[in-house]
């Protein structure tokens, strides 16, 4: 049996497993008798990857089948400061898993989305989880918090996604919220209005934002980066998801 390495973002962890990415997604989301469950996002990591920060070899040695022959589902190698110590080049596909275990694999893209006018809303996924509104596009936002911070707050690495703002991106006051499910919409409108009227690039919307979020609110994809670079994992369009990944799409739209 093959042994895989996974970098989980919710929660941040490096895990060895004998389950394939799809099997691991189901296991990780819906749990076992231990009742762990919930949305999951993880990268497949190059199985040859080794680092002085992690006892990977020891973890792989423990990842052996159970006595009944069943594959070992998970051996946690590290649960702390994982993202910053895994080089971006070692990351493979990104898997986004719904709370009921439907798994969708995303390839990274060399092309970044076209910058659009209007405000942005970023959901940081790891290592911290705040919700940030910004005037900056994704690359500039990443630059601000990882590479060239202008404030005391900085991160060695970050995984985040941009969430849809719809009409609020250009008109925070009168724009229709439509199907945006965010809580405390009035506060979000105030924050966005501040970005329009004051000379600040980013503002915190919610500092203790829940780790999970609705996939249907993802604007165009996921970003992961450290001081060496930024990588983009585009999300297929809703039409492609509906027609080619219907089960995942339906679960993601719950």
């Amino acid at each position, binding site marked *: 049996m093959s042994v895989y390495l996974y970098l989980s973002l919710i929660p941040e962890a490096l895990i060895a497993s004998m389950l394939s990415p799809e099997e691991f997604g189901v296991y990780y989301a*819906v*749990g076992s*008798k231990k*009742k762990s469950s919930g949305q999951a996002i993880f990268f497949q990591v190059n199985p040859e990857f080794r680092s002085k920060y992690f006892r990977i070899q020891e973890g792989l040695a423990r990842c052996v089948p159970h006595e009944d022959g069943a594959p070992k589902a998970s051996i946690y190698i590290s649960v702390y400061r994982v993202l910053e110590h895994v080089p971006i080049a070692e990351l493979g596909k990104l898997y986004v898993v719904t709370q009921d275990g439907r798994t969708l694999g995303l390839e990274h893209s060399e092309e970044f989305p076209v910058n659009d006018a209007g405000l942005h809303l970023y959901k940081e996924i790891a290592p911290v989880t705040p919700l940030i509104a910004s005037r900056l596009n994704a690359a500039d936002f990443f630059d601000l918090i990882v590479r060239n911070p202008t404030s005391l707050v900085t991160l060695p690495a970050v995984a985040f996604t941009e969430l849809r703002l719809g009409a609020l991106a250009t008109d925070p006051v009168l724009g229709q919220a439509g199907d*945006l499910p965010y809580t405390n919409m009035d506060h979000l409108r105030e924050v966005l209005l501040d970005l329009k009227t004051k000379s600040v690039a980013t503002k915190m919307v919610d500092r203790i934002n829940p780790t999970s979020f609705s996939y249907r609110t993802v604007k165009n994809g996921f970003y992961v980066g450290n001081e060496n670079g930024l990588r983009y994992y585009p999300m297929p369009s809703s039409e492609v998801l509906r027609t080619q990944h*219907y089960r995942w799409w339906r679960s993601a739209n*719950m």
Partner: protein
Amino acid sequence: MDKFWLYLSVGASILSIGVALYLFFWVKKQPEGSPKAKEVASWIRDGSRTYLKRLYRTLILVVLILGFLIAIVFSFDLSKISTSQVAVVPINGLMMSVSFILGALCSAVAGYLGMSVAVEANVRTATAANESINKAFRLSFYAGSVMGLAMVGLAVLGMSVIFLITKDAESILGFSFGASTLALLAKAGGGIYTKTADIAADLVGKVEVGIPEDDPRNPAVVADNVGDNVGDVAGMGADIFDSYVAAVVAVMILGASSSRLGLNYVVLPLIICSLGILASLIGIQFVRVGKNGKPGPALNRGTVITTIIFAIMVTAFVLITSVNLGVIWATITGLGAGVVIGITSDYFTSDDRKPVFRTAEVSHSGAAINIITGFSYGLASIVPSVIGIALATLLAYYLAEINGLAGIYGIGISAVGMLSISGMIVSADAYGPIVDNARGIAEMSGMDHHVIETTDVLDAAGNTAKAITKGFSISAAALTVLALFAAYAEVVTASGVQLNMSLREPIVVAGVFLGLMTPPLFSALTMLSVTENAFAMIEEIRRQFRDRPGILAGTETPDYDACVDMAAKGSLSSLLWPALIAVGLPLLIGFVLGPNALGGFLGGSIFSGVIFALFMSNAGGLWDNAKKYIEAGNFGGPGSDAHKASVVGDTVGDPFKDTAGPSLNTLITVMSLVASLFAPLIAAFHLF
């Protein structure tokens, strides 16, 4: 004239049954689809049949016991029972008993046939949806028509044959009582079953675990789909069968007891029903999805065309046969009331109208505000319907009187007029659960996304038809029980007791209060049954998820039978008290407090029953559609705070609209029939 028209009624009913059987076999000839689809359909089919067999086994016992009691009671010449010159006429008891059993049997056969075709048509509709929406719509609607046409055919055939044999309108009371007894248990039992499974499946599957509707990993998904068949097909069919027969028998009794009317007016309701059958048979041909592929307008077109054809037929019949012109006005009044109540249901449950929109809009303030808003609109929805019923009552009464017809007879005719197009109405109603099931089968058997989306479109039209049918059946029941109430008064008066219904009489006031109390009590019992059974099923679903993680991982198949079995046992065991209330309470009031109190009791139960039924059906539909409106991407869409609040409102509304609400019209019909049937005995023997 009467014999000819009676034979015509028999002919029309046989034609209706024949077309139903033809469509039944036509549906069975259509391709079933993939082995997986067939397997999923077989789970639903087996669950539905098992439940119905259990229900009917219980009912056989109830029917035989009641039939035996009726045979004994009616073997005495009740018209002379107060004169101490009691004559024993066993043939009378036997006839009434046979009539009672026949009524229950016809209702059961119609329900079983309707449900049998529904569980055959669901998988075929899903398979047809893979080809085109037109094909899927035609198949599902024709399958629904089997229920509609079989129901009206069996009802008219049964009543016509009994009248041809006995020449006595009162003997059809037994037929009606049999149909009502079965309807009460089928409707309440089916309602408890369907909502038990629906609520349990949603609360654990959707809310706790986060799996979508109709996901095969949910252990209650088969029970949920079975519930659609036993509640919405067999239950609703039995319910309308009951109102249909009760309306006819009430008018026949009024016709027979009125010295101003001849024999023609006794068989007139049967003739009107026969014209309704013919109009429905024609109207069904116009139900086709056009190039725009919209099933909702197709169903509405069928109903409108049937109504127009029926109105023309009645007018022509009245003019040709020189029947009193008041019949035309009364019939049109009934049809008008049906339209008003249909529009009201549509207004209060459509997402493009203010009530649903506002209920959805306020949901972001929480579940409490959602519930208060929906509750308030539900209460407000009573107003136009009640005004419609009141207007129909007054218009039918006075237009009949102006034309020289007994006013109360006019009210009865308006109920018959409204119910005569039941063939079409029930066809549209039974279509709903068939496409709902088709959607479930498509989802569970892993069919392509476009099949699911096609069945979604079909399902949306089914939900609207369902809401309209509920309004229709409640208003029809309201007018029917008014006629039954008059029939009760006639029978009591004929037994030598002068009915005094003055509200200055304390015994009448007591009766009114007890009557007012009964529908809320009945609602409470049926809804508590839902919550108790759902509570047990929720634990079972959680247990399966907890003990067998492979279910959620998709590597193990859930134990569907466990939930199916729990829902069936739970719903049947919950029927005892509701049934006792329906049959026992009128007898208790009658024998203890007397016929005047019983009159007050019937009046009270009719008024609060209609109010509660309208309120519960409309409020439940409103909450349901407010949730769907949010799920369509408004006010935050799925997963938003507003959505979570609307899910709570929808769950509260589920037993309102599908368990208690639609069972209340059956309750008031059963109680009115029990009172009418036992009126001579109560007139002779009562404590006060």
